[in-house]
């Protein structure tokens, strides 16, 4: 397969669209891992859970998958709050978050995945929506709506989160926890209360990201694993808690993956994300925008 201009342009465009979606997938980890320092390895499993709730609501009520993602938001928020509460009581309060906390999230990842397999099997599931199928054509560049809609919605979500972090009281409290938790205690604010809300928000974003995922591609329970590398690669490359850095890293990864898939075949694309992650950790652990 030769490198032609339109092939390259299309690869870059679909990479950018993919990157927009990756931003939605990673924003939760940017909050939980980047800001709160909780290495939530189970985040991709919650995204898959979000895909399956969207699948159920779409299949039984004919609900639009993105609307379905918004409908289940409160449920995911409560789930996130419950998980943080267990995490806080069993690990963070005792100062044992490193080894056992990681094992805890790994276990949750595994439980969620196996439970979904037991209920739904390993078949690929998909949703139906009017924008899955048609494609916009701009000159030689194709813009499939099934990629464009999640990308635009994802950018709206990330932008909204960024605004509420910098403008609202709670958002500023979350940023403050990220910088210096004990100092907050001196201001009579309970850092773990703030972290609870922030962690619950991070899990809630998984509901939406999950509905985007099942719009973009058919989903089966174990594909969440591929996203572990992607989300952490994006989060670390983006400089942990920074949203603009994360967005840039997501776009970069999307484009590189898309070019790899176009010219070398899709079976190589998981290695791209993880290879990026390994290289970033080894050579630029402070992120691409870091000092």
């Amino acid at each position: 397969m030769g490198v032609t201009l339109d092939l390259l342009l299309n690869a870059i465009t679909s990479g950018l669209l993919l990157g927009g979606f990756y931003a939605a997938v990673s924003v939760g980890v940017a909050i939980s891992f980047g800001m709160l320092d909780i290495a939530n390895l189970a985040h991709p499993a919650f995204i898959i859970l979000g895909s399956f709730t969207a699948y159920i609501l779409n299949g039984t009520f004919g609900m639009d998958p993105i609307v379905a993602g918004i409908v289940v938001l409160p449920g995911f928020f409560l789930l996130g709050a419950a998980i943080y509460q267990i995490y806080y009581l069993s690990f963070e309060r005792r100062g044992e978050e490193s080894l056992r906390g990681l094992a805890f999230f790994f276990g949750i990842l595994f439980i969620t995945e196996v439970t979904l397999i037991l209920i739904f099997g390993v078949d690929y599931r998909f949703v139906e929506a009017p924008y899955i199928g048609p494609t916009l054509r701009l000159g030689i560049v194709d813009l499939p709506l099934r990629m464009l809609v999640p990308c635009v919605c994802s950018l709206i979500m990330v932008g909204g989160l960024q605004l509420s972090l910098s403008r609202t009281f709670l958002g500023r409290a979350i940023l403050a926890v990220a910088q210096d938790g004990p100092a907050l205690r001196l201001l009579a604010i309970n850092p773990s209360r703030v972290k609870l809300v922030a962690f619950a928000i991070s899990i809630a974003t998984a509901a939406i990201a999950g509905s985007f995922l099942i719009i973009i591609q058919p989903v089966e329970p174990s594909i969440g694993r591929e996203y572990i590398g992607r989300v952490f690669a994006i989060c670390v490359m983006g400089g942990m808690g920074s949203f603009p850095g994360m967005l840039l890293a997501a776009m970069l990864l999307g484009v590189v993956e898309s070019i790899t898939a176009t010219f070398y075949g899709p079976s190589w694309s998981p290695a791209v994300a993880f290879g990026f992650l390994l290289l970033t950790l080894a050579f630029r652990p402070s992120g691409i925008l870091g000092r």
Partner: protein
Amino acid sequence: MVVFAIFSASRLVTNDYFFFAGYLVLQFVVLATAWNILGGYTGYVNFGTAGFFALGAYSSVVLHKLFGPPIPVLIVVGGVVSGIVGFGMGYLTLRLRGVFFAIATLALAIVLETLITNWDYVGGSRGVYIIRPAQAPLIGSYIQYLFLLMLTLAGIAVATARSIEHSTLGYGLAAIRDDEQAAEAAGVPTLRLKLVSTTLSGAFMGMAGAPLPYYVTYLDPASGFNLSYAVNSIAMPLIGGTTGWLGPLIGAVLLGTIQQVATVTISSALNLLIVGVLLVAFVVIAPNGIIGLIETRGRRRRG
């Protein structure tokens, strides 16, 4: 001694299934002990067990295709290959915080899986068949031969873990686990010790994987790199207790046997769920595992 005793006792069992199941339990003893040499002794979590394990298995496949040396040679080679990868991995990421090391190991496993999936020489995603001889030298039944090899390996792994515990290396590693900065300040060469333990841990995982192609006779990336190896090798030490050599052994024998029984009687998906639930339950409720439970009970009785 123990290895010899178990093997002579097992010779009396004529049922081949015992050896099939026993091999898997012993394989988990090696994996759990190997994981604990790094995870339990230093507190650095390795999620990439499946990667090191499959690397051992696939280096056997390559050698088998080239000239088919005897399995003990394959075990040594598998150990060397995985040990080198463990060293390289540690060299790149052990300077960072533990969380990053954990994520990097997970990444390594997937990069390796992608490489193997795209490497046609070892079967690619279609997998590869290994034709094993019907008879093994001296012992006769081939499955008994594999069982004996794994038993020896388990013995070596446990003995190594045990001797590390009360050596300078072991005390250095324990100092890292308790407070790495204090250890560094007190003159413990932390990076060097961590590298030694990562290399040893990776090497044992590779050795555990090396006989795998002969055991299963058909190997594909999805089964070699199965995430259940990673989950099990973390769950077993955490359930048994991570501070000593006995914990992983107890955890592996217990969980391994439960899974063998559950796979036969219930289903294999459900037994993975059992492992996941036990893992989460133990880290939340009994942070020091079974050994920890026994010790606190003993202390209460005395005090």
